[in-house]
């Protein structure tokens, strides 16, 4: 084997090691990692979908329950991919076993890719479970499987990256909920999960367009129902741009050792 091929083989083993360690971690503690999202979304489906939803009437031409399914699945994907990475990586800083990675020849991009992939697996797993729950309440049809899968994957990647960056900056366990409280929750609730932005006055409609989550929710809603508030192509490029930006940012932080080296 050439030296390059050997190096790539090593990188692959490292990546595999990190990912399987991450999957093992969240499946071992599934009661804390998988179950909560299932319970909250079930409640949403019962209360907003069935009880209140029947009085709201159609939205964008969809029954209200069907309208909120994509958003709720997406919230599950977002929070789970984010939390998996932020809590796992922050714990490794807190108990110092991040040093096991820092002393090893694993390049930073492999470390980042491993953690992000771990978060993506959890995000998509929980997303799939929530989707199954949704099927108990309504018939979920998938208009375009390719678009659905792509949007879910990109969303999971983006928020896993956010989780990684937050973990680098975090200095205490309290810090890991800064982004969820001040960024994620407001953006998801204002991101068109529960309403169509057509309902908003012009000014707020314009402001909503600055919210990345809006594009994911709409991309995903298009994948399931073929209906979207915004053009699909725009949604796709905007999510991709965010992913690129956060990847470069995370790699730069790692290169400088921010939050992991003194």
């Amino acid at each position: 084997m050439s030296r390059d091929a050997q190096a790539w083989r090593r990188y692959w083993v490292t990546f595999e090691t990190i990912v399987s360690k991450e999957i093992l971690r969240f499946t071992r503690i599934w009661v804390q990692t998988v179950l909560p999202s299932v319970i909250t979304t079930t409640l949403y489906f019962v209360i907003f979908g069935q009880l209140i939803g029947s009085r709201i009437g159609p939205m964008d031409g969809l029954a209200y329950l069907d309208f909120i399914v994509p958003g709720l699945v997406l919230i599950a994907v977002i929070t789970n991919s984010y939390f998996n990475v932020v809590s796992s990586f922050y714990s490794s800083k807190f108990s110092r076993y991040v040093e096991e990675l820092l002393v090893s020849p694993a390049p930073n991009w492999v470390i980042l890719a491993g953690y992000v992939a771990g978060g993506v697996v959890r995000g998509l797993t929980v997303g799939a479970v929530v989707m199954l729950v949704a099927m108990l309440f309504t018939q979920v049809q998938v208009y375009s499987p390719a678009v659905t899968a792509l949007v879910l994957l990109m969303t999971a990647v983006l928020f896993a990256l956010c989780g990684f960056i937050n973990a680098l900056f975090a200095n205490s366990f309290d810090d890991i909920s800064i982004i969820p409280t001040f960024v994620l929750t407001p953006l998801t609730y204002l991101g068109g999960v529960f309403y169509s932005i057509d309902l908003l006055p012009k000014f707020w409609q314009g402001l909503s367009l600055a919210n990345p989550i809006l594009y994911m929710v709409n991309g995903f809603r298009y994948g399931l129902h073929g209906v979207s508030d915004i053009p699909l192509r725009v949604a796709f490029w905007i999510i991709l741009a965010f992913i690129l930006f956060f990847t470069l940012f995370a790699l730069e932080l790692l290169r400088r050792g921010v939050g992991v080296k003194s």
Partner: protein
Amino acid sequence: MTKALDVAHLVKTYKGGLQALKGVDLAVEEGDFFALLGPNGAGKSTLIGVIASLVNKTTGSVRVFNHDLDLDPEGVKARIGLVPQEFNFNLFLPAVEVVMNQAGYYGIPRRDARVRAERYLRQLDLWDRRDTEMRRLSGGMKRRLMIARALVHEPRLLILDEPTAGVDIEIRRSMWAFLKDLNVQGTTIILTTHYLEEAESLCRTIAIINHGEITERSTIAALLARLRTETLVLNLKGRVAELPQLGDFVLNHVDDCTLEVEMDRKHTINCLFDALSRNGIEVLSLRNKQNRLERLFLDMVRRVRTDRGLLP
């Protein structure tokens, strides 16, 4: 001969301005067993941290087997095994998984990783505890596990930061034997310790670091040869009320049955005993008042502190 480690003009200034390393130059030959000694806060762990990529250096260079840390960090890291001063593992993982994950980070495929983990856990007498979660291992077991973990990628340079802190005497001895053996088989070893007896019995070369500067670097043999006098403690068979004058040997009472003798190293112990016998003093046992290296070490550290006006 190849240098296992070559550190030049290394400076580390921590955030907040504390300069922990003030231009350290240090070379370690391949195959050496090297002790890095120094009081608390001298900069040992900082130096090791920089070498092992856990601490960012401010300026200076580090080379490990001719691989430069700035130009080829992967080459450097692949050749170093680190046993850190403080425990750093996931407390909720079983011991064997900690070792196998570490192998994975070094790019060793799972099947080989399992074989190696077994080999090193057996060598360190931990194989029976392989499925025990880390938090359920005793302190000494955790220390040994960190050695197994550091060896799993078969590094050419093993760096241990106080590996025997809190380890019982028996296990300490077996760790010494293990490390000696490893060194004989070709692994270069750098070790920090506060037990001078450990440095004396294991290491060939030592460096002393104090306040971020290397103040001494020498072989242990050369260093010990510098001791001009030695103090022995003698336990006597009977009481001795009056101390005789024995010329070059200066006697002092500790109590009725114990004497301290300060003797120049140009004299032999035979001379001392002849003189004692002539005066009817019978000796049951003797020991060095202080580990010899310990005495030199204290002298040197104290000298630096005095130079700085830290001690009267």
